């Protein structure tokens, strides 16, 4: 079967510049992951395009201009990235560096202080104009973010003790939902020996992971509430929270973390062709004739795609088993 590659870069009308569609591309890379705050893409344009000689690169590719990247095989264009140009090189070949909607959020100032905040109330306060999909019932206690940006707040939430990752799903801001999104969508099948180019997967079984997580909530009067989850004899973690007064709430946060860490799955990634197109959050069903123990259904944690040198490749990092 012959597969012909095709790509299309669409730059919608922006600040007086008319819509521009580029069908000739030297290379494209995209990096997307639910653990990564910002999805990124780079586009390298060919050297010999007369249109670019006639116009100033900075006028065409202005910082902040929206961009849509599509590519696929045999005339099929799959939207692989939507975002904004953050950098356009003045050199030849022209290279465009792009970031998703998070780029806008990075610039959105935050000056907020909330008493007994939940994840939902915090997001409503920091990103009121965004469509939100936030994990319900997460108590954060008092929060205060002075002279900050939305991205800095999200970055802080992604670190301990909360480990609540945020990412953009189109124009929707998602937080704390690791794999929950897209699970209604169809599972994508991959045969490791037939339609995977290579793999560097190391299996870890849920039973092999011995884990104990201790949660300590430091109360405002100096008291503390402790909760524990897991089994002794393996890795031990301690997460420190502030002002969460109910032990059940601390346990709920620990359970969320435990479930993520305890889940069996693969470390590493495998590389596939450009089709079927995969994005993080989807489920992938792996089949292997050589290593039957690797067969199973897993969540996709990250996908890095490359379009260059007459090939499209997807480096797919798997998360936990479904």
């Amino acid at each position: 079967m012959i597969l012909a590659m095709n790509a299309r870069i669409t730059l919608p009308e922006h600040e007086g510049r008319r819509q521009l569609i580029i069908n000739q591309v030297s290379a494209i890379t995209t990096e997307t992951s639910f653990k990564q705050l910002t999805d990124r893409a780079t586009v390298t344009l060919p050297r010999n395009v007369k249109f670019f000689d006639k116009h100033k690169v900075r006028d065409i590719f202005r910082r902040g201009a929206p961009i849509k990247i599509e590519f696929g095989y045999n005339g099929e264009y799959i939207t692989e990235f939507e975002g904004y140009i953050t950098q356009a090189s003045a050199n030849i070949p022209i290279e465009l560096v792009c970031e998703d909607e998070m780029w806008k959020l990075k610039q959105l100032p935050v000056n907020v202080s909330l008493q007994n905040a939940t994840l939902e109330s915090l997001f409503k306060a920091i990103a009121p104009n965004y469509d939100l999909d936030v994990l319900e019932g997460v108590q954060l206690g008092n929060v205060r973010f002075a002279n900050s940006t939305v991205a800095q707040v999200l970055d802080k939430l992604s670190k301990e003790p909360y480990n609540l990752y945020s990412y953009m799903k189109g124009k929707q801001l998602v937080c704390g939902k690791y794999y929950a999104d897209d699970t209604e969508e169809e599972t994508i099948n991959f045969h490791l020996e037939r339609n995977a180019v290579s793999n560097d997967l190391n299996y870890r079984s849920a039973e092999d992971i011995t884990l104990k997580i201790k949660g300590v909530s430091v109360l405002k009067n100096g008291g503390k509430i402790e909760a524990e989850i897991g089994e002794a004899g393996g890795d031990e973690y301690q997460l420190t929270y502030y002002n969460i007064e109910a032990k059940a709430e601390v346990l709920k946060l620990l359970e969320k973390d435990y479930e993520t860490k305890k889940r069996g799955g693969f470390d590493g990634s495998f590389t596939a062709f450009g089709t079927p197109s995969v994005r993080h959050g989807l489920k992938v069903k792996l089949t292997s004739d050589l290593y039957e123990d690797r067969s199973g259904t897993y969540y996709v944690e990250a996908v890095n795609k490359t379009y260059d040198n007459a090939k499209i490749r997807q480096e797919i990092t798997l998360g936990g088993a479904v």
Partner: protein
Amino acid sequence: MKKEGQELNEFAKLLHKTQQRNTKVQTHWAEVTNVNWDAKTMTVKGLTDGLEFYDVLLGLGASYAKPKVGSKCLIGIIMNNEAASFLIHAEAVEEYNYTIGDNHSITVDTEKLNVQINNTNLTIDSAGFLIKKENETLKACLNDMIDELNKIIVIKGRTINVAAMNVIKQRLNTVLTS
């Protein structure tokens, strides 16, 4: 020409300055906007960023200060978390409360000073002094004593001047309260 090692010293100084710049501020100037004396916490507004600090601790049990709403204060940050803070000092306070051991306390507010040592109590306010041990007050004792002295009839010599004693009793009652 710089001496050997001088560049290194300057580099170390610059590094130290950079580190200091990156250290998170652990104290803030703020203005008191609300005091919850029952919960022994207050809400203040940061003077530099205009943002509230909620549930600022007014003490930990041994001593509490009730700052005046509208006064400036200095607060400290607990465990590098801006959402947890405590009062260091305030420009104006309405009440101080100290507890020593289980049964000793001193309270001063805008109206009175109260010292409690076990079941002995001293209260000073604009009405006078209240000195009390269990159910007995100094005022009641002295009043009773004067009343008893007034009953004394002297057979040989001068009888007690009841009118003068009552004046003394009245004077005492302007100093002592019950």
